[in-house]
């Protein structure tokens, strides 16, 4: 958790006049753009390993489960002959003649073909198709809300840390309180107040009834009004963690000598705050963003149940209730994949922000 000295951070700032911005350096060397290949290679290895672990867990999950998809499918559709049920079993890949290893290899082969199996819950449509209609809603809502929450929390935490000892300190217990409330309860209360009582926002679905997705102003407006309440509740519920983390890191960084030096050099406060203190305090924040995104995404998919939002979270819950294993696997895979992609993005941001990752290359 040591912090980089800001001097190292000036690889990006070479085009500025060093004398003008007030450093003590008299010459500014033109630095090469260093791409931290070794850092990226290490991370890539980790992601491949995680991906393999997730897919393997995914493979074993339905095989350790009680009950099978076909029986619960038959329970819903009574007029199916035993022969049809058998062929359905073969279609779903749960005929048990093959060895476990053979099934595992087949599973990988299917994944490489982009074949995730078929969903018994959605009229035997391919899982990939069902997922692709649900994924944009979740990515849009949860992704956007998480990024806004992270940005607000980090900037807010930086300001609260900077103005330490002021009234702004009260923000920390308040946001922590909202952080400890379960998402779904906050969502239900929000619906009760803003939707049922005040009628400001619709309480469920992603767009009005009888509409189909299209690129029109009317439809986009509807998506925004329907998405506001879920997004705002996600932001409120997850803001506290980011704010607390950033504020604690700021308090630590602000005691560092280079902050004193920066102030002694007569730099404007704003520059000390953002370019020196916040710049260094944000590093652990980005790391914890990468690591906790799985936790956050997991928590917020419950939101979709509360708001009847047509995303993957609702899909997962429906699939669980109907024992639609192929769909469950698909949803879990997609959620894990998106979390991994978010992690990769966070890594790239981290490599950009922390010069030490680049320095080890030299």
């Amino acid at each position, binding site marked *: 958790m040591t912090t980089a000295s800001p001097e190292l951070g000036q690889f990006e700032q070479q085009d500025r006049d060093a004398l003008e911005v007030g450093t003590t350096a008299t010459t500014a060397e033109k630095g090469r753009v260093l791409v931290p290949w070794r850092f990226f290679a290490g991370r890539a290895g980790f992601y491949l390993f995680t991906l393999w672990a997730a897919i393997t867990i995914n493979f074993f999950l339905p095989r350790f489960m009680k009950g099978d998809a076909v029986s619960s499918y038959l329970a819903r559709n009574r007029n199916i002959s035993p022969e049809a049920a058998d062929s359905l079993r073969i279609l779903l890949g749960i005929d048990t003649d093959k060895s476990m290893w053979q099934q595992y290899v087949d599973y990988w082969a299917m994944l490489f073909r982009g074949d995730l199996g078929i969903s018994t819950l959605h009229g035997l449509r391919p899982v990939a198709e069902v997922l692709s209609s649900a994924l944009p809603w979740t990515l849009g809502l949860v992704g956007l809300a998480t990024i806004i929450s992270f940005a607000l929390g980090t900037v807010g935490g930086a300001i609260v840390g900077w103005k330490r000892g002021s009234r702004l300190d009260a923000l920390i217990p308040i946001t922590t309180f909202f952080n400890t409330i379960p998402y779904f309860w906050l969502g239900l209360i929000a619906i*009760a107040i803003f939707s049922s009582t005040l009628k400001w926002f619709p309480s469920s679905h992603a767009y009005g009834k009888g509409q189909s997705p299209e690129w029109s102003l009317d439809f986009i407006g509807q998506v925004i009004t329907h998405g506001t309440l879920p997004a705002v509740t996600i932001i409120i519920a997850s803001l506290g963690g980011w704010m607390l983390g950033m504020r604690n890191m700021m308090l630590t960084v602000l005691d560092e000598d280079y902050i004193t030096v920066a*102030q002694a050099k007569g730099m404007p406060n704003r520059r000390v705050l953002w370019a020196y203190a916040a710049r260094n305090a944000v590093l652990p924040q980005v790391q914890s963003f990468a690591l906790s995104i799985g936790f956050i995404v997991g*928590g917020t998919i419950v939101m979709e149940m509360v708001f009847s939002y047509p995303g993957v979270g609702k899909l997962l819950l429906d699939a669980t209730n109907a024992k639609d294993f192929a769909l469950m696997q698909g949803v879990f895979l997609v959620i894990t994949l998106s979390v991994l992609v978010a992690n990769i993005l966070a890594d790239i941001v981290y490599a950009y922000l922390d010069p030490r990752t680049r320095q080890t290359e030299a």
Partner: protein
Amino acid sequence: MSVPTSTENTAPDGRPIPTGMQETATFRAPGVVAPPRKTFWTQLVQAFAMFRNPKSVAGLIILGVFVLVAIFAPLLAPYGPTQKDRTALRQAPSLDHWLGTTHMGEDVLSQLIFGTRGVVVVGFLSAIIATVIAITIGVIAGYVRGWKSESLSALTNVFLVIPGIPLIIIVASQFENPPLIVIAAVLGLTGWAWGARVLRAQTMSLRNRDFIQAARANGEPLHRIITVEMLPNLMALIASSFVGTVTAAILGLTTLAFIGVIPVSNLNWGTILFWAQQNGAFPRLWWWYVPAGLCIAIIGVALSLINFGIDEYVNPRLRSAGERARAMKKKGLDVNAPVTAVREVPVTGADPATSQTTKIQNANTQK
């Protein structure tokens, strides 16, 4: 070896020095004051030093109240948790039913009191499971080197990255009627990774301190180095990750109960919310769904308070920074003002504009 902690990590008064992340291995000269004799009681008091601050105490008191409610539920609850009163359906709070009744005439307060049991038992049980795993993996990963450490670290990161709640939903849906221990185990098995990561980092920094080197040079066995030399220095982090896991487990349990993955026979606050939502309590029957959610929030705040206290013990700057800033403000200084703030103190107390002023220089960076 009856002196597990050297002057290296023990303050002159015998108090262990907080082993925060910022700590460096600076040499501390032994104090003039001889350390007081160690007895069982002084060591016990030391072990709980991280809870000795107002925030932690407040959190512990609130938590204690919930634990007591869970233990004495049958004595406290005015009715049985599933006792139905057909004459009082969906009633607002009254003297008979302090928090009203459900659609079946069950007393909400009694359900809440009995539901505390499920929450407290699962919360602590899964936190114990998670903490034991976290200590084992984290400390070993921090102590060993090379590929062993890296692979344990990779395992930890995999568990951190894989989204927990979807996995739990899938696993928990396997059981027709999962007992509390299974729910606690699943929550614990998916929730240990964060603690392990923090403990690994701290163990790695401890590993190279002189007192560990000395213990190794003395030929102490590995298990003794870990349990006697290292664990006391990791206590604050272990406590903080335990408390964090309790919070996560309670949120996880209530979430699972709310979405109906955990059967309703297992009464907890999440189940109350599940029934409330299933039976159209929203938004009118507020007494049915508001108290349960508030209880989750209150126990969560209590646990965060404990953790705030531990954080401030580990990293004293978190508290002192605000105190310093407030003290300077009282003197009329701004903590963020440019380096030499010039304070004007009126000598006579007359009109400051005309009176002679003394200029006092204050470096705002004074600690």
